[in-house]
């Protein structure tokens, strides 16, 4: 491979980025910095909550500013050390990444406030808030990076912080759940690393924009379909898609409720984000070739999730299966692959980030108020906490996909997209899964909220809690308001998701932002 002689001083360094471009790295820098600060003040546990919540509020503002900038000016890129793009590690935020980062920041803030009530002093001394900061560093980094090996590194960052959060409390069932979670997720990221290694061997570059523009030329010569299949398997493990979903119901109900809420909202969505980024943006032709397999896996994921939710007595495990059913919907969007379907998947991801977190918080609060997690022992919550019950009802409707809440619009978009390409069976799976989820969640409402508390309370029931705390009511109320708002006024987000999907399907603007000169080598 002959490289033309270059003027090193001029060619290898970019011009200094505009001050506003620093927004791309600030979310990650803020979270890593705060994580370090919280480690340093680990002896003064009282300070943790305040610092973390101030930091997460700032994170929401930064991500909102980034989204605004990306939405007005197009994708923003910043390269570490100002190295010329294919060589330096690039952070590139497009609409898809920025909007996911904002959604993640919002639910992290909600979880941070909820944790004030849910995590006791010993949990904070163990490091809940530092782990939360590092988890958010990993999640934000994964959403904003433009380099595929860097994406792997952020996966590992969020994975190791999630281990810390998962075993917070060190109870035997947490260790049991954590062992399965850790081994299977580690195998998933290792598969991702294998795929990255092959990708580098084929392309000689790790920059996503560079890969996107070189893929067309290498399609004849290199086994890109095999490579894409490897990526799909790795991300399917991370996203808990059938048949590699079994780690999720084994572990997500074991940690503290706020940790389950964070995981249910964030981690599987990082897998879906990466799946969309790699298959839709980098390897669209290969995605088309593998679409039938992805579609079958999507349909089965939806049904397994819905049937699993119907069969659970523990409400936290039930919510875990609802998360899995949602993953199936997003995979369906990836399988169909038209811009309308991808925008449906993006909408679903945003809806799912907020709704699944809120559902776990509802499950946690219901368990605290009722003194047990088992549906067979819960009851009378409506009488005890009417406002909480009202919010839960709205969230149940949203998770089932019923109008007028946020679950409706992505389902409509996905249904329409699947009928447009004639995949009636995929549409049927979406409808059937939504119907079964409606049954499962309606039964939760019927049993836990409406009926009177069963008289001989089954064993293992803790003393039932009293009224709802503001630290619970505030995040839950805000998340419910978001769900209602998006349900009633879907236009702005529909438009945003549409533009994000178009940006993924035609990544010219993304490439342009990384290579402003157009043809650097």
């Amino acid at each position: 491979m002959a490289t033309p002689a270059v003027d090193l001083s001029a060619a290898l360094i970019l011009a200094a980025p505009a001050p506003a471009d620093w927004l791309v790295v600030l979310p990650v820098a803020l979270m890593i910095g705060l994580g370090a600060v919280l480690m340093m003040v680990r002896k003064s546990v009282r300070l943790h909550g305040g610092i973390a919540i101030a930091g997460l509020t700032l994170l929401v503002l930064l991500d909102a500013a980034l989204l605004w900038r990306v939405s007005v000016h197009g994708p923003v890129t910043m390269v570490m050390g100002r190295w010329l793009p294919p060589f330096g590690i690039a952070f590139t935020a497009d609409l898809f990444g920025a909007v996911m980062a904002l959604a993640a920041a919002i639910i992290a803030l909600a979880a941070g406030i909820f944790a004030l009530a849910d995590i006791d002093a010993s949990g904070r001394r163990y490091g809940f808030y530092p782990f939360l900061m590092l988890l958010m560093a990993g999640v934000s980094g994964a959403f904003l990076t433009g380099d595929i090996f860097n994406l792997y590194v952020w996966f590992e960052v969020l994975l190791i912080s999630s281990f810390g959060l998962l075993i917070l409390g060190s109870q035997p069932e947490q260790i049991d759940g954590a062992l399965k979670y850790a081994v299977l997720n580690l195998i998933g990221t290792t598969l991702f690393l294998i795929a990255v290694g092959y990708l580098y061997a084929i392309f000689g570059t790790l920059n996503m924009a560079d890969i996107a523009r070189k893929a067309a030329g290498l399609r004849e010569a290199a086994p890109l379909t095999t490579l894409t299949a490897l990526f799909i398997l790795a991300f399917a493990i991370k996203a808990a898609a059938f048949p590699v979903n079994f780690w999720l119901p084994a572990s997500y109900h074991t940690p503290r409720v706020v940790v389950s809420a964070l995981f249910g909202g964030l981690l599987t969505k990082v897998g879906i984000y990466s799946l969309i980024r790699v298959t839709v943006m980098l390897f669209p032709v290969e995605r088309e070739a593998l679409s039938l397999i992805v579609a079958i896996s999507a349909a089965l994921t939806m049904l397994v999730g819905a049937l699993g939710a119907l069969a659970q007595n523990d409400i936290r495990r039930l919510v875990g299966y609802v998360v899995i059913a949602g993953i199936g919907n997003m995979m369906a969007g990836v399988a169909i692959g038209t811009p309308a379907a991808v925008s449906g998947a993006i909408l679903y991801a945003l809806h799912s980030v907020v709704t699944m977190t809120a559902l776990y918080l509802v499950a946690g609060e219901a368990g605290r108020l009722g003194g047990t997690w088992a549906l067979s022992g819960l009851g009378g919550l409506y009488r005890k906490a009417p406002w909480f019950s009202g919010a839960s009802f709205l969230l149940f409707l949203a998770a089932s996909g019923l109008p007028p809440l946020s679950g409706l619009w992505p389902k409509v978009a996905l249904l329409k997209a699947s009928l447009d390409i004639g995949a009636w069976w995929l549409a049927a799976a979406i409808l059937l899964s939504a119907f079964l989820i409606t049954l499962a969640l309606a039964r939760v409402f019927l049993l836990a909220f409406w009926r009177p508390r069963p008289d001989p309370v089954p064993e293992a029931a803790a003393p039932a809690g009293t009224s709802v705390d503001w630290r619970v009511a505030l995040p839950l109320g805000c998340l419910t308001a978001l769900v209602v708002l998006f349900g009633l006024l879907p236009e702005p987000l529909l438009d945003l998701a549409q533009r994000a999907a178009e940006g993924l399907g035609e990544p010219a603007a993304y490439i342009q932002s990384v290579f402003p000169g157009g043809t650097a080598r």
Partner: protein
Amino acid sequence: MEALFSILIGLFFAGAIYLILSKSTVRILLGVALLGNAVNLLLFTAGRLTREVPPIIPVGMDVLSPGAANPLPQALILTAIVISFSFFAFLLVLTYRAYQELGTDDTDEMRLAEPRNEQLPPMGY
């Protein structure tokens, strides 16, 4: 050289998968460690295997001399080694704690989080 390494990597992967499919957590752990090393060797081989050609651009030339190995995959391996080492340390402690708390290293017996005869939700109201 690359062909030999490919066979070696294949053996590593086969051994790792065999160990991971076991029921005993310690074997699974060893399998995961072996898997990490298999991937490292894979990345290493993908970056070209050569002897005695350092990846340094000689005086008066703009590019590496032909046959030099690509140093970037080696940097990637370094990152991956550090990460997999920390994960291995964590998993080691987790496995030990699991054995202490659950009293078994057989994954079939680890049913604390998913009890074997879990109750179904109430059918009636």
